């Protein structure tokens, strides 16, 4: 217990990390760089959660700048962070160069969606996306994430997605468990 308590005190918060100057220099040592990029991905995720905007332009995002200690992560470092996020599966690079940060893994969201559908008795039914948006784990999720989750659920053979004339008419049918 004492060790755990000590570990809790020793672990740094976001503010501690953002005030650490070496965070803003891309480290040459491989293991250190990997740990540094993980820290950046976590910081970026919490920033997007706070802003509630999951599409980030890495070149101009303010999370990479700290005026208090006069440090900023350079272009190369930001590109590395974006690439590492994609490698770790926590983000996707879009066509216009922006980074889309995934709030959670699409597979996890898909599983939650299916569980919710099972719990609310919607298995076997067809629902529009608008209906799903009102309630459930898809509420408040970014559009891309929603699409990714539905694709993952479809790939897992748990639902079928119908595209209608407009996106509002697109529908989802949940399969029952066999």
């Amino acid at each position, binding site marked *: 217990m004492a060790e755990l308590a000590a570990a809790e005190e020793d672990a*740094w918060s976001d503010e501690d990390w953002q005030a*650490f*100057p*070496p965070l*803003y*220099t891309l*480290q*040459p*040592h491989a*293991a*250190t760089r990997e*740990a*540094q990029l993980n*820290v950046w991905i976590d910081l970026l995720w919490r920033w997007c959660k706070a802003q509630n905007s999951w599409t980030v332009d890495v070149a101009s995002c303010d999370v990479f700048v700290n005026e208090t200690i*006069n*440090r900023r992560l350079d272009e190369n470092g930001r590109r590395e962070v974006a690439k590492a996020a994609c490698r770790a599966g926590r983000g996707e690079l879009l066509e216009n160069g922006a980074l889309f940060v995934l709030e959670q893994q699409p597979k996890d969201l898909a599983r939650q969606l299916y569980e919710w559908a099972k719990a609310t008795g919607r298995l076997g039914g067809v629902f529009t996306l608008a209906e799903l948006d009102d309630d459930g784990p898809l509420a408040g999720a970014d559009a891309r994430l929603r699409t990714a989750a539905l694709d993952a659920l479809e790939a897992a053979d748990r639902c079928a997605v119908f595209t209608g004339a407009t996106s509002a008419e697109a529908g989802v049918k949940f399969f029952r468990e066999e």
Partner: protein
Amino acid sequence: MQPITTQSWAAEATLAETPGKLEVDDDWVRGTLRLTASGVSFVPLEGGQQRQIPIGTLLRVVTHDRRRRWKKARPCVELWAANGTKATFDCRDDRRRRAFASAAEKAVADHATGFKPSDAGIGGLARRRRRRRRRHEGLAEDTRADLKALAARAGEVVSVLKRYGDASAASAFCVADAEAATVDTSDARQLAASAARVAERLLERRPTCSLADLWCAYNRARGVALVSPDDLADACARYLAVDAPRRLADAPVAMRTLRSGVRIIYNAGDDVPGRVAAAVPAAGASAPAVARALRGPAALGLEHCLDAEAAGRLCRDAGPAGLAFFPNRFLA
């Protein structure tokens, strides 16, 4: 002629001599004119003031016949001195006058060229040898006296050195090692073992030192018989390097090569990157500050920081003020 008497002239050999009368203040004094190597001197017959002209001031010797209307012509020698005076000397006969004049002219010419009759002949050789030996003996005497005085002061100097040597006995640089001085430098194994002992003393003060520092300290310990840097580097590479196949089993120190090629000596089993990381405060430090904290040379500061960074103990911060190093919290 100047009325100066020099006793030594009487002892010199006579080159030419002629009797006659010297004109002194409208009076004639009988005497003998004598030419020696130092000049012309006049000795009066009845005693009295001797006169000399040094050879350096003698300008010309002129012979002519002094004519008086009612007396017959007498052969005469005129000596012209440098200060404008002339001495007229009536010679008794012409033959001696001619001999004297020619001898005097020859003496003046010899003086101009620097030739001395005492230097000629076997006697001259003997005289020169004696003169040289006397000069050298004088020099040896002076040297002996100087060395005696130096030996008397050397005792004081050694006592002062001993006092300072005791005060800084911990510094390996002041200690002359008899054991190190007798090691044969052609045997690399012995050289490495001896250098390791000196390095052990050197590493009491600081955690690591460069191979150049060890070379300096080792040569200081050896005293006069210095070892070349190539010999020491080769011996250390063969027997003290960490990854050497024939490393001395009980060597107290080890040698490593850093990324840039610098070779450092450290206590075997010591964790040098750990020490470097311990020397860096939590707020970070620049490379020269780390070198100061390690009490090592400033040029090695950056090397040690890069080495510790490669070992994952430090991380770098390329800020606007330059490169700084922090303890590595990423891998902590």
